C-alpha cells in the first residue's frame, strides 16, 4: 500500500515537473488521473452535476495557473483537494442555500434483482435517499472530511492537511459525522413509525 502511494507520488511529481517544462500533455495526464474522483466528490458536495463540472474545471485551471507554486512536500492529491475545498468555500456557498434538492431521485440505481419487488425497492430507495440527505445536512467540514475519507482513501493526516486541521481533529470530525448520521437516522425511523 505504501509502495503504491509513493509510486503515485513520484509519478505525480514527474508529471508536474514535466508540465512546468512546457509539456502540456503531462498536465492532461494529471487531469485524467484525478478528474473523475474530484468530479464525483464535488458532485456530492454540491448535488449538482453542472456546478460540479464547473468547479472541477475551475480547480484544474487554478492548479495549472499555480502549478509553479506547488510544493512537493504536499502530495499532489492533497494539494488538489485543498484547492478544491477553497474554491468550493469561496465561490459556492451562496448558491447552495437557495436550492431545493430531491434526494430520492438522486439515489443511484438499485440492482436489477430488485426490480421484481417494487415495494421493497421503493423502501430501500427511500432509506438511501434519507441517508444521503443526512450526509448533505452535516456541517460542511464534517461532510467534507467524511467524503474524503470514504471515497479518496485519504489518511487522517492528509485530510487534516486539506482542511488545515490536525490529524486527530480530522479523525474526530469523521467520527462525529458518522455518529450524527446514525443518530438522526434513528430519530427519523422512530418518528416515522
Amino acid at each position: 500500500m505504501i509502495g503504491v502511494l509513493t509510486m503515485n507520488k513520484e509519478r505525480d511529481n514527474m508529471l508536474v515537473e514535466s508540465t512546468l517544462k512546457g509539456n502540456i500533455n503531462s498536465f492532461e495526464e494529471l487531469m485524467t488521473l484525478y478528474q473523475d474522483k474530484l468530479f464525483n466528490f464535488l458532485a456530492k458536495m454540491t448535488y449538482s452535476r453542472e456546478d460540479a463540472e464547473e468547479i472541477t474545471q475551475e480547480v484544474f485551471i487554478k492548479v495549472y495557473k499555480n502549478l509553479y507554486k506547488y510544493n512537493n512536500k504536499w502530495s499532489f492529491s492533497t494539494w488538489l483537494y485543498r484547492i478544491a475545498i477553497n474554491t468550493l468555500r469561496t465561490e459556492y456557498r451562496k448558491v447552495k442555500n437557495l436550492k431545493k434538492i430531491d434526494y430520492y431521485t438522486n439515489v443511484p440505481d438499485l440492482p436489477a434483482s430488485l426490480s421484481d419487488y417494487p415495494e421493497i425497492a421503493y423502501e430501500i430507495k427511500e432509506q438511501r435517499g434519507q441517508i444521503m440527505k443526512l450526509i448533505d445536512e452535516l456541517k460542511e467540514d464534517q461532510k467534507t472530511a467524511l467524503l474524503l475519507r470514504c471515497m479518496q482513501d485519504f489518511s487522517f493526516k492528509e485530510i487534516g492537511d486539506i482542511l488545515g486541521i490536525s490529524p486527530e481533529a480530522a479523525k474526530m470530525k469523521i467520527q462525529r459525522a458518522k455518529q450524527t448520521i446514525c443518530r438522526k437516522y434513528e430519530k427519523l425511523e422512530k418518528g416515522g413509525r
Partner: protein
Amino acid sequence: MNCNFDFEDIIKYCENQMSDEEKKRVKDHLDACEKCRRYYGVLKYTESYAKDSSLKSESISKNVMEAIDMNRYSKNKKVWAGKAFYKAMPVIKPILATAAVFAVVIACVANFDNFKRLIESPGSIGANPTASNSSPQNTSAAVIPGSTKPEDLDPVEKRTITLYFANSNADKVIAEKREVEISQDTQIERLVFEELQKGPKSEDLYSAIPEGTRLLSASTANGICTLNLSKEFVDNHPGGSAGELMTLYSIINTMTELSGIDKVQFLIEGQKLEAYIHAVFNEPFGRNQDIIGKSASEIKAEVEARSQAAILAIKEKDMEKLASLVHPEKGVLFSPYSHIEPGKHKVFSKDQLKGLLKSEEVYNWGEYDGSGDPIELTFAQYYDKFVYNHDFANVEKVAYNQIQPYGNTIVNISDVYPDGNFIEYYFPGTEPHDGMDWASLRLVFEEYNGQWYLVCIAHGQWTI
C-alpha cells in the same frame, strides 16, 4: 431496548480495522441488537455512497484545455526566438554549420558526449532543402540534428547577464537580469552593450544611454574593457550630473559584471576625452557598488525570506529566533486587530521579547472589539488568541503588501508604516461559520542598516 455498545467499535468493524476475535464479538452483538444493526447498515451505505465514482463527465478536460494558456510554462520568449531563428535558417545555417564543425572539433575532448550525440543523431538531409542544396560547404548537414531547435546547436550558448538601469529618481542604478543567447562569434561586451541599449523590461526603470550611440569597437585587456563609442554618446546626452552618473554607472557596473573586467575605459570616436560632461574621462572607471539600488523584486524576496523565518519562529514559539528578527530600535508592536494604534498597543523590545512567554504578568493589549472591554492577558495567553490562533505558517494565501478586501476594520498599516513592507498570512475561514472565522496575521518589516526587521505583528479577525 437501550444498548450501550460502543459506537466506535461498529465504525471499526465497518472499516474492517479489527482482529478476527474482535470482529466476532461485534458480529455477535449485531446479530442480537436491531439498533446497532441499523447503525451498521447506515454506515455501510454511507461508505458505499461516498465511494461511488460512477458519474462521468466528458467535457471537463476539454474545457480546461481550452481555457488555459498552454504556453504558460514553455517560456514564450524562447518559442518566439525559436521561430524567428527558424525563419532565418536558410541564410545562417551554413555559417552555423561551419561553426558547429569547428566547435565540435575544438571541444570534442571535453565534450565527447555532445559530440557523439551530434554524430549519431539521424541526419535529415532532405529536411531542409534550401540549406542542403544551396551551399557546397554544407557537408555537415547530417551532423545537425533534424530538429529546428536552435538550442541544440553548439555555437549558441545561453547566458544570464545582469544589466543596470537608472531608477526614476536618477540616484541609483538597479539590476535587471535577462537571459541571452550568445553565439561563438559574438563579443560578449558588444552583446551586453546592445542589451543595455534595448532598455529595461521593468516599467519603473530607465535606459541611460544617449540616443543614437553606436559601439564602434570593444576590447578587453588586463581587466580593462575599452569601449569605443560614437560621438552621439556625448552630443545626445541630456546633461545634468545625475544623469551623467546614471549613464556612466549603468554601463560600468554592467560591464564589470562580466568576468575578467574590473574597469571600463571610454573612447569617443577612438579618442580619449579629458572629460565626459563633468566627470574626468581619461582614466578607466572602476565599479561603483554604492550607487546600486535594490529592485522591487529583490526587496520583495528579502522581505519574504525574513517573513518566512519569522512565521516559523512564531509557529514554533522560538522567541530567541523571533527576537533576532525584531527591529533593534523600534521593537515590535502587537496589534490584536487590523487597525493599529501605536499609542494603545503594546510594544516590546527584542530583549524583552525573549523571556515573555514565561512571564506571568498581565498586560493591557488594547480593547476587545464589540464590548470595548480591556484585553487583559499574559503574553502567552495573548499569543494563543491574537498571534498564532491558526496555523498561519501553512495557509494557502500569502500576500505581499496587499490588503485583502475583507472584514470591516480599517486597515491602516500603510499609514502607520509608510516605509514598511508587509506579508499577510490569510486563512479564509470555514463553511460552518460562514467564513466568519477567517483570520489573518500580518508581519510588517522596516529596513534598518540594510536589513529588514520586524516592527509589527498585526492580527486580523472578524470584528463586529
